[in-house]
């Protein structure tokens, strides 16, 4: 049959679109025309396929070849269509039976030797194929484990074009049939046991984990700001199935998935350097924007060490994703929307001299100090619930023989507090205290006036803004969840205010 069809998937951001590939062989001077909005990398497929066919002991059809990619309005980019294009040609030339290609999507890049190379974004592509009602997806063997995470679809991994041709012809050959891989327990990350002293910092970390609150750590060098931040993702609850699939899809598109155990169960941790550009943090790139650090940190932790050293534009670009939990990036090739519900941890020295002895031995003038911390804009800090000042580690804590609590024990308390919050907030469809909208805090979850006297006084004296009151209330609810109280009392509200007011007066 001189006409054949195959299916593949084109990604726009995280969104997969089914692409139908038609190959027509007609009489005339041999040439090759590809239509249907392919970009340069898709056009290059012609030379890869030609070499791959010849080196797989197939012949390049000496006919007038016309390939159409539909829908023609969708821009096609990348090398992922190679396999579908090659098989469409082979089916049109009668080498593989067209009947073997029904209900099947093909993904994969070809090497000149006919090998099938791994791709980025296989997981969202397979998801799109499954949602479009296809029953079988053929993927590069190296992406098999990742593709198998999608339920209700048969996944076949191939390592070379010759193997695929044999498989489609029903011959005996080497293909890998997908099976859900057993999840390996993740390697242990850094443990809270390593941190000496810093009871305040540990408490703030636990509260941040339990309520999903953003955290700002300020303190002299060596106080353990970075160590604390690195240990936050270790005490966060593991991702559930839906969250893990979402996070794995983002990491797949970003190309940062480990090939052997691709399912991301541990909340991700991203710590970009302070010279990073806006595009690398929020996402960017030409054509279709790729996910940035905030999307790779989705459902996990984004840690900005030496926060005042970041360009102010970069920090302010975080404000909108912090509110909405996602980021929409428009580029010439179309718009991409990536989820970005990350937990922000900022760390800063109190001043440029950063004396290890803390504020007592600082040599900076008050103007220098104010200017340094002023680089963190008010609107950004206003979105951070917990402001904690760490003190230098004492001699007794560092050299004494006290044993600090391990991450597993803290994680258990966090899990219990999260469960309590989720149960209470189920009526609103929320799960974390940090997500409670302000009006709900002041109506449905209204506290007795008698417990609120301290907060009211701070509001009257201008120490807290109206938004600051909401943030204090959210943290107070988390503190109540951690202690197992039904609602926050005066002591929880006082502690919450202390965590809000110390570093920065709202």
């Amino acid at each position, binding site marked *: 049959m001189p006409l054949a069809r195959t299916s593949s998937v084109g990604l726009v951001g995280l969104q997969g679109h089914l692409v139908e590939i038609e190959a027509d062989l007609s*009489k*005339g*001077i*041999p*040439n090759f025309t590809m239509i249907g909005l392919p970009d340069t990398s898709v056009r290059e497929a012609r030379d890869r396929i030609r070499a791959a066919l010849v080196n797989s002991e197939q012949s390049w059809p*000496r006919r007038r070849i016309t390939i159409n990619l539909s829908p023609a309005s969708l821009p096609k980019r990348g090398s992922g269509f190679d396999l579908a294009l090659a098989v469409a040609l082979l089916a049109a030339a009668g080498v593989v039976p067209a009947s073997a290609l029904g209900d099947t999507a093909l993904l994969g890049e070809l090497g000149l030797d006919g090998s099938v190379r791994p791709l980025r974004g296989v997981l969202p592509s397979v998801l799109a194929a499954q949602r479009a009602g296809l029953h079988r997806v053929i993927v590069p063997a190296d992406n098999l484990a990742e593709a198998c995470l999608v339920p209700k679809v048969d996944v076949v991994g191939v390592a070379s074009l010759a193997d695929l041709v044999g498989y489609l012809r029903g011959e005996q050959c080497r293909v890998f049939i997908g099976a859900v891989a057993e999840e390996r327990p993740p390697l242990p990350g850094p443990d809270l046991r390593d941190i000496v002293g810093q009871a305040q910092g540990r408490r703030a970390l636990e509260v941040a984990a339990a309520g999903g609150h953003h955290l700002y750590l300020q303190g002299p060098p060596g106080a353990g700001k970075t160590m604390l931040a690195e240990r936050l993702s270790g005490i966060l609850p593991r991702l559930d199935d839906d969250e893990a699939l979402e996070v794995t899809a983002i990491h797949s598109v970003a190309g940062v998935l480990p090939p052997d155990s691709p399912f991301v169960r541990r909340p991700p941790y991203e710590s970009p350097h302070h010279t990073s550009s806006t595009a690398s943090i929020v996402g960017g790139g030409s054509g279709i924007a790729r996910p940035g650090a905030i999307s790779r940190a989705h459902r996990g932790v984004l840690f900005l060490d030496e926060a005042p050293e970041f360009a102010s534009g970069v920090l302010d670009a975080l404000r909108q994703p912090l509110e909405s939990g996602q980021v929409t990036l428009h580029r010439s090739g179309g718009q991409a929307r990536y989820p970005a519900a990350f937990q922000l941890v900022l760390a800063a020295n109190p001043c440029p001299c950063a004396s290890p002895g803390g504020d007592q031995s600082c040599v900076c003038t008050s103007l220098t100090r104010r200017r340094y911390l002023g680089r963190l804009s008010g609107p950004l800090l206003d979105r951070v619930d917990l402001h904690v000042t760490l003190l230098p580690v004492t001699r007794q804590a560092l050299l004494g023989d006290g044993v600090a609590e391990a991450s597993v024990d803290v994680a258990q308390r966090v899990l219990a507090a999260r469960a309590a919050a989720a149960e209470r907030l189920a009526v609103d469809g929320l799960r974390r205290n940090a997500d409670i909208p302000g009006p709900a805090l002041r109506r449905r979850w209204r506290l007795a006036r008698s417990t609120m006297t301290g907060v009211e006084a701070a509001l009257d004296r201008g120490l807290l803004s109206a938004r600051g009151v909401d943030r204090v209330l959210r943290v107070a609810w988390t503190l109540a969840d951690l202690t197992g109280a039904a609602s926050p009392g005066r002591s929880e509200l006082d502690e919450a205010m202390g965590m809000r007011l110390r570093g920065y007066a709202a």
Partner: protein
Amino acid sequence: MRAKDAIGQYGERVAVRHLLQAGWTVLDRNWRCPEGELDIVATDGAVLVICEVKTRSTDVFGDPCEAVNWRKARRIRQLAASWLATNEDCWAEVRFDVISVLRQPSGAALVRHLEGAF
């Protein structure tokens, strides 16, 4: 005579023999005018067929007829118009064919005839 011209002439002889065997009438060979040359002008009954013959001794560089690109096709169309202008017969239909001749190390050459190539 250079080697490539010798191969070309060999190919044209092979092509003419192929057409005659198919029962066609060859009207003209190597018709020249200032703009260029038509290899074969033939007819298979009612249709005038302008044939371009490409000959190669190896297909390492692709099929011989792949060498007929859009520029060559355009020139052949213009030459065909000139040929029609200098001949009095009228043709209802004109077709352009490409005959690729692949010389074999021994034995008969491989002939592929693309009807209505452009």
